[in-house]
Structure formats: structure tokens, C-alpha cells
């Protein structure tokens, strides 16, 4: 009884030792790589979020101690402020427009750029270039282009459409859509590059087989390209939604949310009410609302849209 067990144990011990040290080394490696990231995450992401939640319960000028506790008062004020609900509406208009307008453009251009033709490399650079610019530079360039009698107005005039010239940034009913055009100009290149990368991953054989079966090019796009591009499209949608919700730089530099709050986004409203007015408690409440809306949308999107991708990947791997 005892001898086999001892022998087993010794055998086990002999084989355990290297495994044990390997495990320890793996843990050490894990700690080495994870801890710095974890520290930064806790200190620079989680802690500030919790702090913002804390501040949001006070009436606080940003200076001095937190003493004037108002509970959910700031949140109530925010939802009672038509300027804030207006800003939320603007964000969702931008989300909707981004998905509906930018996607067909990005897909069309990506399909085009995926075909071999002379000057393709140059065309890719042209489409992607705006994405490389910072938002601040984009905003300043477009301010110049859009100013009355600027490049856009002259362009319209030179093709005999002088009557179509509008006050692109000064018209309350138009300014949000002007902003959307600028956003599209800046970010559609990113969508194109993402979709192009996705297209490269689609095996050519499928198209060849379909061609032999007599499929037309639209049929191939509909039944081969789009389904196989699904994961890329869904990720693009995710990034587009989050980007539209958090839009700040472009709007702040170009219009400061004006005129008369017509182009306010949640983020510009937050900056205006938090920093410019020294109402840091209220600004924090707005920031928390912005965070919750973005976070909730991200979770819903992951649950209902992106989940299919992970499941597909996992089953394929298992099979």
C-alpha cells in the first residue's frame, strides 16, 4: 500500500517541481505585465470615475471643500434643462446619421479600392489622410473653408449654384448637419480602412466559385462580401456609435455648441457648464450621465450585436 503511494509521490514530486516553477514563473510574468496596466487603470480610469460620481452629488465650484450636499439634485437639474436634453438629442441624431450615411459611403469606397486599378495606392492615402489629422486641425481647416465667402461658398458660386450657399455654421437649423459633414469627412477614411482590411480576409475562391455559378457582382456583394464582412461592420458600428456620443473637440472649436446651443453635444454642454461656469459638481453629474449612456449603449451593443461574432469564433474554434 505504502510503497506504490510513495513511489507515486516521489514520481509526482519529481515531475511537479519543474511544473511548479513554470507555474510560478507564469504568475510572475502575469504580475509583471498586468500590474502596471492595472495600476494605471485603477488610478487613471476607475478612480476618476468614482470621484466624478462623488462630486456629482455636491454643489461645488471646483475650489475648496465639498460641503454643499445636494444628492441627486444635479441630475434632476440636468434632465430639466432643455439645453441638455437638446444636446442628448443632437448626439443621437449624429449616431443615427453616422450609421446610415457613413456606412454606405465607406463600403462603396472600400469595395472600389479593393479592386486593382492604377493609382489605387494614392486613392487609399487620399481617403485615409483626413483621419490622420487631429480633430483640432480638422476643425480649424473647416472653419476657414466654411466661413462666409470661403472655399465652399466660392465652390458653389463657381458652378453656378450661388443660390445654394447657406450660412453653414450660423444657421441654427443647419449647423448640426454641417458638423456631421465634417465628421464624415474626417472619419469615413477610418471606416474605409477597416472594411478594406476585412475585405482582404475574404478568400478569393468564394468569388471565383460564385462567378462559375453565374453570380452577378451585386449578388456576390450581397451573399459573399457582406456576410463575411459582418464582424468588421459590427465593430465599425460600435466605434462609430461611441465616437458620436463623445464628440467634443470638433464642435467646441468650430461652434462652441452654438449658435444658441444648436450644435451642443453632451460633452460640450458638460465643458460649458462644468469648466466655463465653475460648476464642477453639476459638470460631474453631466459627465456621469454621459458615461452611463455610453456604457449602457456599449453593453447593449455587445450583448445583441457583437455577441454573434464571439460565439461564431468560439464554435468555429471548437469545431
Amino acid at each position, binding site marked *: 500500500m505504502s510503497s506504490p503511494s510513495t513511489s507515486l509521490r516521489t514520481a509526482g514530486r519529481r515531475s511537479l517541481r519543474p511544473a511548479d516553477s513554470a507555474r510560478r514563473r507564469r*504568475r*510572475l510574468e502575469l*504580475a509583471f505585465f498586468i500590474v502596471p496596466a492595472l495600476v494605471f487603470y485603477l488610478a487613471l480610469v476607475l478612480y476618476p470615475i468614482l470621484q466624478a460620481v462623488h462630486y456629482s452629488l455636491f454643489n461645488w465650484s471646483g*475650489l475648496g471643500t465639498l460641503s454643499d450636499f445636494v444628492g441627486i439634485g444635479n441630475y434632476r437639474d440636468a434632465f430639466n434643462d432643455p439645453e441638455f436634453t437638446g444636446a442628448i438629442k443632437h448626439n443621437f441624431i449624429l449616431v443615427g446619421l453616422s450609421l446610415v450615411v457613413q456606412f454606405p459611403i465607406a463600403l462603396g469606397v472600400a469595395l472600389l479600392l479593393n479592386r486593382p486599378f492604377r493609382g489605387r495606392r494614392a486613392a487609399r492615402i487620399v481617403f485615409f489622410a483626413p483621419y490622420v489629422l487631429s480633430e483640432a486641425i480638422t476643425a480649424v481647416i473647416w472653419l476657414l473653408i466654411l*466661413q462666409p465667402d470661403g472655399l465652399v461658398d466660392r465652390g458653389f458660386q463657381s458652378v453656378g449654384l450661388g443660390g445654394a450657399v447657406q450660412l453653414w455654421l450660423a444657421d441654427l437649423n443647419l449647423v448640426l448637419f454641417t458638423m456631421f459633414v465634417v465628421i464624415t469627412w474626417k472619419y469615413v477614411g477610418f471606416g474605409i480602412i477597416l472594411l478594406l482590411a476585412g475585405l482582404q480576409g475574404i478568400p478569393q475562391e468564394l468569388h471565383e466559385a460564385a462567378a462559375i455559378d453565374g453570380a452577378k457582382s451585386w449578388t456576390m456583394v450581397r451573399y459573399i462580401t457582406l456576410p463575411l464582412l459582418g464582424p468588421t461592420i459590427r465593430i465599425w458600428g460600435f466605434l462609430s456609435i461611441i465616437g458620436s456620443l463623445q464628440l467634443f473637440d470638433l464642435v467646441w472649436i468650430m461652434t462652441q455648441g*452654438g449658435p*444658441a446651443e444648436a450644435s451642443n453635444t453632451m460633452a460640450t454642454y458638460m465643458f460649458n457648464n462644468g469648466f466655463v461656469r*465653475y460648476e464642477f459638481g453639476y459638470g460631474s453629474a453631466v459627465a456621469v450621465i454621459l458615461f452611463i449612456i455610453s456604457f449602457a449603449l456599449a453593453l447593449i451593443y455587445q450583448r445583441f450585436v457583437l455577441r454573434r461574432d464571439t460565439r461564431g469564433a468560439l464554435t468555429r474554434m471548437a469545431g
Partner: protein
Amino acid sequence: MFRRWKTWALLLGTVAVLASLGGLTTAAQGKTAGPKAVTLTWWHNATADPGKSYWAKVASDYHKLHPDVTVNSVPIQNETLQNTKIPLALQSNDPPDVFQQWGGGVLGTQVRAGKVADITKYVKPWIKLLGGAVAGWQYQGKQYGIPYNLGVVGFWYNKALFKQAGIAAPPKTWNDLFTDIAKLKTAGVTPIAIGSKDRWPDAFYWDYLAVRVCSKTTLQQSAITYNFSDPCWTKAGTLTQQLLNDKPFQNGFLATPAQQGAGSSAGLIGNGKAAMELQGHWDEGVMNGLTPNQKGLGSNLGWFPFPSIPGGKGVPGAALGGGDGYSCSWKAPEPQCADFLKYLVSVPVQKGWAKLNIGLPTAKGSESALGDPILRAVAKARSASPFVQTYLDIAYSSTVGQALDSAIADMFAGQKNPQQVVQAIAKSAKSSH
């Protein structure tokens, strides 16, 4: 269990090591500043020349005079400085020692939070040199800052365009202004340029009209009681609306910035695209910088005070104005900091600054150094004003001040009437005071 505990211990250990490393670096940094040698970090808004180089020179000159004090001049873009940099820095443990101070309601907020040094006892021997200008940098009778630049708002105008429209002399009354606007329109000239994108230029009109129609007591009390029930406030709005209905502004003015680029309101005046602009005393420097030769309109540029309103309850000749100053933060070495402020507003330094023609010096006897005849005229108007009301967005707490600017901007965009403007201001005052 044990293994897991060990992993956690390892994690915590690494955290501790990292944290102590952080501590070590801070300790090392703390040691470099000796007990005697003092460094003053100075945040100001002179990001462009000639102001930028001049402040850098002042900083090094001061170091030459006081070898134990090093002044570190840090120029920061004005709006960033005012809206984010200063509030965040004051709340942190590492604020600048000397920082740009606009006075008024924001100064009050900073003082109540204990973030600004009381320099009353240091400045007492010499503050008379600055005269009445210092009032905007006081809070409850104590001095918390020193102004080096104080000006009044008025109309900058293009003499050639006025002449072209057949206007012999700048308007004296509110009605004259409308007559001249009509003449300019007939001559095909944009009468008034305004930078409504920035909101505060809109408020200049409303503020100035309030200065004309509200009594001095009403104006001064409003910054204490935040009571806006006097009908004169609505009257200021009605008069503003009257101007708006006349459509004197450039095409697309709602999106025009005040000071950035040739398409800004200052740029339009400087480049001869509009006849006049209601702006602060700094406007000449701004508009010159926005013209191709940096010279602006030259001798064609003129200045006239805001027109009078017959029957208004305001002090005749009163002006709307404000300025720039510096404060010492709660962390600053007080005697050295106060002495540096004294140096900044000493007559030789102020004279040198006045020569740059970018503002109106506050130290008595330094105005003569203003090389520009128009600035000398503005300085004269400032001295002649029986009463200078600080811009209302500065005089009030930042919450009320910004709500005021925002409500008036809404009126300029056709989204609020005069009553709604007063209601919006009163509402923000009620919720924050």
C-alpha cells in the same frame, strides 16, 4: 487558496514598489528647491509677441535685480488659461505662484475657497500709485490682486468707410447710431462687425445698455444681491433687440469668432470689411495682427465711446470696462510674490509695456509712454469716466456671468426675448446663490 494569496501578495508588492518609486521621485524633486532660492512660476496670457517677449524680459530682469528669485514665465492661451488651467491648478497641490487674474466674481469664488493670497499688507505702501483701478481686484476690502492693464469698451471704427458713407462725426446718441447704420448700409458697407461665436461680444451691447439705463446703485447692488427685478434690465434687452432688428451686423455673424483669423470681427475691421466694432481696449493690437502687413488700418482707425441714451438713469459718461491683473496663489512665497507684483506695476516696467500698445497701463505716469494716439485717447476716456462698470460676466460669479453671456447670445440668435434673458440670468442666480 494559498497560491492565490501568494499571487495577490505579489501583485500588491509590485504596486507598493511602484508607489514608493513614485514617492522617491517626488521627494527628490522637493529637495532641489533650497530654502533660500525661490522660484516663482508665472502664468500669463501673453502668448503672442510683443507681449510674450516683454514678459520674458521682465522675468529675467527681475532675476537680475533679485538673484535669489527666479521667475519662470509661462504663456498660456487666454481661454484655456481662464477656463481650465487656472481652476484645475488652484485645486491641485501645485498651483502657479503668480497667475492671471481678471478680478470680479471669479476672484470672489477663489478667495472664498482660500486659494488666493491676501497681499493687503504688502501692497499698502505703494498701491495708491494705481488709483481707483485696484477696486476690481479687491474682495471685502482686502487686496487679492494687482491690475496692470485696465481699459474701457468702445467702438473702433474705420474713418475712411465713415467718410465714404457721408458720416461727418461718430454718433453721440443711440439714435445717431441708427442714422449712421442706415448711411453705411446705403453706401454698401457692413455697418458693424461682431464676434457672436464667442458670446461675450454680444454681452458688451447688453451690458453697456444696462450701464446707460440702470442707475449706479442698481448696477453695483446686482453683483451683491443678484436681484434683477428693476425694469431697467429688461429695458437694456429691449434696446439690444431694437439694434438686432435693424440688422447692422455682417453676414453669418452668429458663427464669427471675435479674434481668430482674418474672418473674425477684429479681422473684418482691420481689413476694411466692416465699419465699426464694439470691443475692448485690446482690439487694435488684435486687428493689426490679423492684417497682412500687421499694421491694420493705421491712421484710418478711430475710437468713440458708446452712445448716450437720452433719459437713461445711468451715470452720464460711465463706461464698461475691465482689465488684467495678477494674483498670488495660496502656495506662493508671499513676500517675494508681492514684491514681484510691485515690480510688474512699477512705472518703468509699465512704461515699457505701454510702449507695446497692447493695453492701457494702470500705474499713474506711465500712460504717457503709449505710443499710439488712439490708445492715448482711450486712456483719456478711461480717466474721464466718472464710473467704470466691470464687464458683467466678470463682475458676477462665473455661473451667473456665463449664464448672462449665454442668454444674451441666445437673444442674438433669435431664441430669447428681453424678458427671457432677464429670467435666465435671475434663474441661474437663484440656483447658485
